[in-house]
């Protein structure tokens, strides 16, 4: 049973991640008053199949100046860590790969490991753009992981558990984004930064760094970085739903459908933010994190704790 669930989650998440690329291209086109890819299959959905076939048949080239083993290892790391995090995502009461009592900590820990793919890829490429992108990636991901971790402390206090299923059940009366609006905003901003999406895509800022840490990658190894990023978007959307928007809770429809609908909505928000906002300068990014988000998330913890204790009497 658990093997079947795990397989369904693995394949389903990879398929959603791949189709998210099409969704993003169509939505970006919609917001830029164009159509985007709409030829292959209904609504252009088969475009990703064509892209996959193309990318599989591309030459799998390792530059002669690269450090071979970490170079080949790096794209696998990002896929592995992101997919591992899905083990604790509570899709529905029955449909969860594993109910860890430290599920939230597991998610934070494993998704932090994803930074290794950025540093390994940037370092092993042995090129200056990759290295600069890798350095930016580490600093950004490590600092924003801090605020992400701190922003969910309020949720854990309200739910009284690290188990994600328990956290969802604790939201039966009131979804946590209302008492924890600050935590939600910080978590979502941190999520954008950790998946290094626009406006926080400084590790791969194409105007300055060609493609950042994956400049030297081609073929399916590049494809794995790419799909890894999109699966990361799915992961952050799913976690946002589970932590702040009541997970599978909702009237009429089955729980799994509610969870997927809410996740889809947040995937669209990711794309909307990308469509609307420019990229900040690197020092602005770090100043924003450490001077604004860190005090805010600490204040959020203190306030939540104070109100929680006062309410408990």
């Amino acid at each position, binding site marked *: 049973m658990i093997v079947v669930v795990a397989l369904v989650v693995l394949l389903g998440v990879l398929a959603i991640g791949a189709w998210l690329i099409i969704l993003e291209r169509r939505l970006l086109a919609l*917001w830029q008053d164009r159509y985007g890819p709409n030829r292959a299959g209904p609504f252009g959905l088969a475009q990703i199949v064509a892209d996959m076939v193309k990318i599989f048949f591309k030459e799998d080239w390792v530059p002669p100046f690269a450090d071979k083993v970490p170079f080949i290892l790096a794209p696998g790391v990002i896929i592995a860590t992101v997919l591992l995090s899905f083990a604790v995502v509570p899709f529905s009461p029955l449909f969860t790969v594993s109910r860890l009592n430290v599920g939230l900590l597991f998610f934070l820990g494993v998704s932090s490991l994803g930074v290794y793919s950025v540093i390994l890829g940037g370092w092993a490429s042995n090129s200056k753009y990759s290295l600069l992108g890798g350095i930016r990636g580490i600093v950004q991901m490590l600092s924003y992981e801090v605020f992400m971790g701190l922003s969910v402390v309020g949720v854990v206090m309200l739910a009284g558990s690290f188990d994600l299923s328990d956290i969802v059940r604790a939201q039966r009366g009131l979804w946590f984004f209302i008492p924890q609006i600050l935590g939600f905003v910080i978590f979502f901003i941190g999520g954008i930064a950790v998946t290094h999406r626009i406006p926080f895509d400084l590790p791969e800022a194409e105007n300055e760094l060609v493609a950042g840490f994956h400049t030297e990658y081609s073929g399916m190894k590049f494809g794995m970085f790419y799909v890894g990023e999109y699966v990361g978007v799915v992961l952050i959307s799913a976690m946002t739903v589970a932590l702040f928007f009541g997970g599978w809770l909702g009237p009429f429809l089955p729980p799994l459908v509610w969870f997927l609908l809410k996740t889809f909505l947040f995937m669209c928000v990711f794309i909307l933010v990308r469509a609307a906002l420019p990229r900040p300068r690197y020092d602005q990014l770090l100043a924003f994190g450490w001077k604004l988000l860190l005090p805010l998330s600490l204040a959020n913890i203190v306030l939540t704790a104070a109100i929680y204790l006062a309410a408990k009497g």
Partner: protein
Amino acid sequence: MFSILRSIWGVLLHTFAKRETVLYPEELPYLPPRARARIVLTRDPDGQERCVACNLCAAACPVDCISLQAAEDEAGRRYPSFFRINFSRCIACGFCEEACPTYAIQLTPDFELSERKRKDLVYEKEDLLIDGTGKYHGYNFYRQSGLAIRGKGKGEGDQENPPVDIRALHDPR
């Protein structure tokens, strides 16, 4: 902070905006009648080839996609023995049409040139010649010019006087 939210909202409003893209094969854009694309060779009102193989179009062509060979028939009319346009090179600039002294070479609005093989885009004279006169209906080069061909001597063209007899002693007028 407010400006960030405002720009996100502004982009979201574009969900309901009209899309600019013209979905080409299903939806054909309007092309003006003088739009420049595929080149044709026209005939004069009598059905004869207009081209006199002067090579001016080939000389004017900035991408050298026109090549032709001049010949002369027994009536004294010049014509191209072959006329070849490589449409994979043609940039539809229309310089050949401007250079042409006889209105023979003309550009049409048909732009849908695509082939599986590149050499299928090389058009020969048979592919280029059309039956009509194109944009200029009444014009016939040999009726306008002073050139003598069989059936038309010097001075018999339209708006032309007979040649002056330089040996005559008096002013012929």
